Each structure stands twice: as structure tokens, then as C-alpha cells.
């Protein structure tokens, strides 16, 4: 199915891409045992037109960052820092101001977005409804825009008249993307947009996102646990671990020359189709407790290269490349680390307890 080369910029009124800056964001959740430091001092800049992938394991705080940007955190969460959207602080906006920027400046797609379509209305009507609610255009014009958006995400415009249940999961997710794009928001925030899809659906959705990025060049934040998804769609990569950003930089730089051992481990954990010999290595151990985070580097307990200094002193985000930053005490040894991180025995040393248990249970 070849998509006619619609010049997307022509179908929606031009708005400049948004500049976003997160300054020292901290989010604490109140739980019975104290305060859970879900996000602990995250700073991030999204320049106009830039696409950033925010990557990390579940519980690392990436979704909390996304929710903080959308102001969707629970009432009892304590939020500190600033989230500047073209200079305006989202965290200090009134509800009225928030409504104004949502969808016009800030659109979002969530993991279960495909289930957010109302089953009793036609998909087209739902998209038109959201356009009419925010912009002063006629119904016909809105419908035409919806048709163009559908073409853009690779669905035949005629299917706007369908109900959600007539769409497959991947098509629904693409329909939601079309809806999120309908107002040409300057910043698109996508939280695990393809996690619920199988690999073919994911491939289709990512292809659309990539294409849109090429044509519309808006700012985008893609939150995902899947590095490969970021590698395929983003320019910049930020890796989060235990509430902090531990490495950031251009995707190609970070993935080919990671400076943080966690990034190295994450990269090795990916199954690849194109490299026969590479071993699949998982990172042993679990995230540290965020109720009472350890002193020093938070990755230390799982790091095969840790030293005494790592458990004592917290590493700062250091400049390691032109635009690459890494929070490891030993950027100079990164080359050696990289080579050793490709071997399984390096990681096997990390958790002697698991090893001991394995020995005890081994043998039939």
C-alpha cells in the first residue's frame, strides 16, 4: 500500500515545534513506608524538532517523567523542579492554561491508547470532535483534515466511517496517532506506543512515526523500555536508571560507544537478527529500593566494574563526547569496559548469591 505523498505541513495550520526543558525534576510518591523517590533530579532538553527516546527498565521513573509533563500524576505525589514548555512552566499552570496547551502544544499517545477510542462512535467522528473542540474550523474542513491524517498514517480515508472494533490493534493504534496529530501539537509525547503490539504491527507504527517526523519535524519524546525502538526512530537517547538519567547523547554515539556500564548491559540484552555470534546477556540483579536509594552510584550493586568509590560517591553526569554525557566515575576506561561487557562471564561475576544457588540446584 503506497501512501500518496501528502505534504502534511499543508493540511494543518503551521505551528512551530515546541522547545522543552526539564530542570531538576523530582517526583516523590507517598507510600506507607515513606517517600518513594521515583524521579530524582532529572534534567532534559528537547530542542525544537528534536526526537528524544527516554529508555529504561520498568520502575526506572521514565513513565513518571511522562506523567509529570502531562500533569497526570496522582494528587499525593510531591513534584519539584520545572518543566518549561516554550518557557512556560507546566507544573505551575492553572487547569485552564493546562487545557489550552493540551492537544495544541502537547499531544500524547499512551501504551493502551488503542483502547481509548470510544466503541460507540465512528472513529472519524471522534477525530473531528477533538479538532472542533480546540480549533475554530468548520465540520467539513475538520473531516477533510481527518481524511488526510488517515492517509498519512497509512489507513484508507474511507475507513474513518468504521467503528473501533472493526480495526485491528495496530490500526487502532495508528488511528490514535492520527488523532494525536490532528491539532499539530508542537510536542508529541509517546509512552510505550508499540509495546502492546506484535513485531509486524510495531514495525508499521514505527515506520509511520518516522515518516511523520521527516515530514512534520515536530519535537517528540518517546518513552519506552525498548532501545531498538529508539534506535529506529529517535535522534537523541536518554537512558534512565533508578530515577536518574545515567547517559544521554545522539542515538548513534550512545549505542556504538556507550560510556555507562548500564547502557552497555542494556545493549547486550537485545536479541539481534543480524549478528550470529553475539551472546544474549541479561543484567543480573534488580533495581535498588527507591525508598532508600543507596549512596553512591545506583547501578553499583549490579555493575561488574564497580569499585569502592562507586558505593561511596555519586557520579555526576560528565561530558564524554561532543553531545554525549555519562554518569560513571570511569569514562576513561569505557573502551575496556565495552570489550569486557560483551562477555558473559563479566556479568556472571556480579551476583555470587545467584551463582551459588545455581550450583546447588544444578545437575539433574
Amino acid at each position: 500500500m503506497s501512501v500518496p505523498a501528502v505534504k502534511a505541513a499543508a493540511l494543518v495550520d503551521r505551528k512551530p515545534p515546541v522547545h522543552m526543558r526539564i530542570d531538576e525534576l523530582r517526583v516523590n510518591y507517598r507510600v506507607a513506608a515513606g517517600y518513594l523517590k521515583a524521579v530524582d533530579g532529572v534534567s532534559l532538553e528537547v530542542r525544537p524538532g528534536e526526537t528524544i527516546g527516554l529508555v529504561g527498565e520498568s520502575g526506572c521513573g521514565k513513565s513518571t517523567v511522562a506523567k509529570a509533563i502531562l500533569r497526570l500524576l496522582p494528587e499525593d505525589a510531591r513534584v519539584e523542579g520545572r518543566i518549561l514548555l516554550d518557557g512556560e512552566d507546566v507544573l505551575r499552570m492553572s487547569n485552564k492554561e493546562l487545557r489550552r496547551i493540551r492537544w495544541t502544544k502537547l499531544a500524547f499517545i499512551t501504551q493502551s491508547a488503542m483502547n481509548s477510542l470510544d466503541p460507540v462512535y465512528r472513529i472519524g467522528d471522534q477525530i473531528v470532535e477533538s479538532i472542533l473542540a480546540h480549533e475554530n474550523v468548520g465540520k467539513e474542513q475538520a473531516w477533510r483534515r481527518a481524511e488526510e491524517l488517515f492517509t498519512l498514517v497509512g489507513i484508507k480515508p474511507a475507513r474513518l466511517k468504521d467503528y473501533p472494533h472493526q480495526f485491528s490493534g495496530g490500526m487502532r493504534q495508528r488511528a490514535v496517532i492520527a488523532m494525536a496529530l490532528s491539532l499539530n501539537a508542537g510536542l508529541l509525547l509517546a509512552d510505550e506506543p508499540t509495546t502492546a503490539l506484535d513485531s509486524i504491527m510495531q514495525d508499521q507504527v514505527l515506520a509511520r512515526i518516522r515518516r511523520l517526523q521527516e515530514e512534520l519535524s515536530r519535537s517528540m519524546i518517546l518513552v519506552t523500555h525498548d532501545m531498538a525502538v529508539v534506535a529506529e526512530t529517535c535522534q537523541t537517547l536518554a537512558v534512565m536508571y533508578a530515577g536518574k538519567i545515567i547517559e544521554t547523547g545522539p542515538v548513534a554515539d550512545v549505542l556504538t560507544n556507550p560510556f555507562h556500564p548500564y547502557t552497555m548491559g542494556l545493549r547486550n540484552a537485545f536479541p539481534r537478527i543480524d549478528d550470529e555470534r553475539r551472546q544474549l546477556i541479561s543484567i543480573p540483579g534488580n533495581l535498588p529500593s527507591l525508598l532508600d536509594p543507596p549512596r553512591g552510584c545506583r547501578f553499583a550493586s549490579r555493575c561488574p566494574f564497580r569499585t569502592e568509590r562507586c558505593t561511596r560517591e555519586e557520579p555526576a553526569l560528565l561530558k564524554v563526547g561532543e553531545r554525549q554525557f555519562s554518569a560513571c566515575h570511569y569514562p576513561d576506561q569505557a573502551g575496556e569496559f565495552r570489550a569486557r561487557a560483551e562477555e558473559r562471564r563479566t556479568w556472571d561475576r556480579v551476583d555470587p548469591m545467584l551463582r551459588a544457588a545455581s550450583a546447588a540446584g544444578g545437575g539433574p
Partner: protein
Amino acid sequence: MAPMRKKTHSPAANTGPRPAGSPTDFVIAATGLKKHFTIGGGIIASLLGRPARVVKAVDGVDIAIRRGEVFGLVGESGSGKSTLGMTLVRVHRPTSGTIRFRGEEVTNAKGKALKAYRRHAQVIFQDPYGSLNPRLTVAQLVEEPLKIHGLRDQGERAMRVIEALERVLMPPADYLHRFPHELSGGQRQRIAIARAIVLEPQFIVADEPVSMLDVSVQAGILELLKRLSDELGLAVLYVSHDIATVRYICNRVAVMHYGRFVEHGDVRKVTARPAHPYTKRLMAAVPSVDPTTKRKRVTLSEEEVPGEEALQAERQWVEIEADHFVASTP
């Protein structure tokens, strides 16, 4: 491309090769397996004159798995791969075809015979958050299959549970009395695996066991499955939509589309030289973490992959190289 050694055979009207060797070589073997679901067709629907619709989830499949072999089953959602797995362990009753477990037919087993078969055939589910009852402790969870199958001696049960936990690298002393909500996704899936092996089965269906886990722990679970298959001589059916993970742990693979196999054989050969357009499509969909090697995108559009009717016409297997078969039109 390797020269095509055309060696064809066409088993009567179904797709799939006859497994070589005597039937007892295989832990599990099915021939001509079909599972059709009827949708609608209730009393009210028939009163209104609405015909029942038949969904051919599995539509004529031959499959055979040996001891210690991890067999990969790939396809997208809706291809019928999970239904095939569930039919093999007899959660579903097949519409037609036969299933043999160590040469013995279990196709229509019920009652005691079915329970006896289930002792040998276990399932690991996709969702480790849903497959463990949150009210039970790890000890109770892993103990459950033993209780179901009537192992009364508490000491014996404790021994088996502890052994199973050690095998999945969950130190028993630390985890026996924990609840699922205290564990991470990867740990939960280990518990699910311990549950599956505690009865010392010979066949396990692992239905997308890592697709809901963080990438950083996926490798560990895959390794564990492979090691258990080796150590315990388990026949494992690994069901996944992700052909990249299949390549890591499987010996053999079958690609499923619209309820049928379109390609199967040695996993290295199939992934190195995919022959069926659908397999190529699946391979192309795997995202890469390597930004330097811009992968050659085989951007096959939906139309280039044969649709359901075209696949129905493919009723012949061509062995394009040793142990690598692709379905084709005669």
C-alpha cells in the same frame, strides 16, 4: 541463494511434512491438527437467521518435538500460534487430527487420562502478573500442581518445590514465603517456570514468556528455558511473535500464518535464508539496536505477502536445503 534442491512431497491435502523417524522419537507429535472455533450460532443468533462463523485458528498443522528440543513457533497475533500451543496441551480439544504424546494418542483424552497427560504437559503463560494468584505465597504457588496431582506427603512436596526453585535460580530460603507483588516481573516469570517444572513434565508450552518483561531480564529467562530443556530433556514449544528471540533459544522453528505453517526447519537456516515472503516480512519487522548497520529493510507491503486464499493453495512442501522447508503452490 542456495541452489534449490527440489524435493517435494504432498501429504494428502494438508501442509506439513511427515516427521521422520518412529513416532516414539518424539515427545509430542501432531498430524493434520485443526482447531476451528464457532463464533455466534447461539440460540438467539440462529433464531435471527444469523449463520455461525467459523474461525480456523489452526488449520492443518503437522508438528513434532523431540526430547531436549526447543521448537520456536512464530507468527503475528491472530496467526493461531497460541491456539496451537493450547491445543497441544489439550486446553482445547482439537477439531480434527491427532496428537500423540510419546506415541500414545491423547487427541480426545478425558477424565483420568487427560489429567495424567496434563501432568506431563505444562504451560508457561505470557503475563507473569496475571498467572500467579496474588493471594498465595511462592511456596503455595509452586506447590499447587503437586497438590492438584495428589502428592499428599508434605515433606515430599517441600523437597520438590525447593528443588524447582533452585533450578530457576530463586533461592528458596529467601523467596518461599513471599507474595507475587513483592517480586519483579522477571522473578515472577521464574516462579511460573518453577510451577511448570515441579511435576517433572516432558513437554512445556511457553506462550510468549518474555514479551511482557523488561529487555534487561528477557535474556535470563530465555537462557533458563534453554538450560532446563537441556538438563531435564524437556520438549519446549516456544511461542513468540519475535523471531529474534526465537533464534536465540530454538533448535527448530516454524512460521505460522493464518493457521498454517508457511516455512519450517533448522532455525539457523530459516533465519539466515528466509524463503517465504511472510517469513521475510517477519524478519524485516525486527528493530535493530545497531544504528551503524542500516539494516536492509525488506519493505514488503501487505499486498506482497500472500493472503489467506493464496496460502490455502500452498499445499506442497519444498525442501530448499537440508532441513529447511517452505510451503509453495504445486
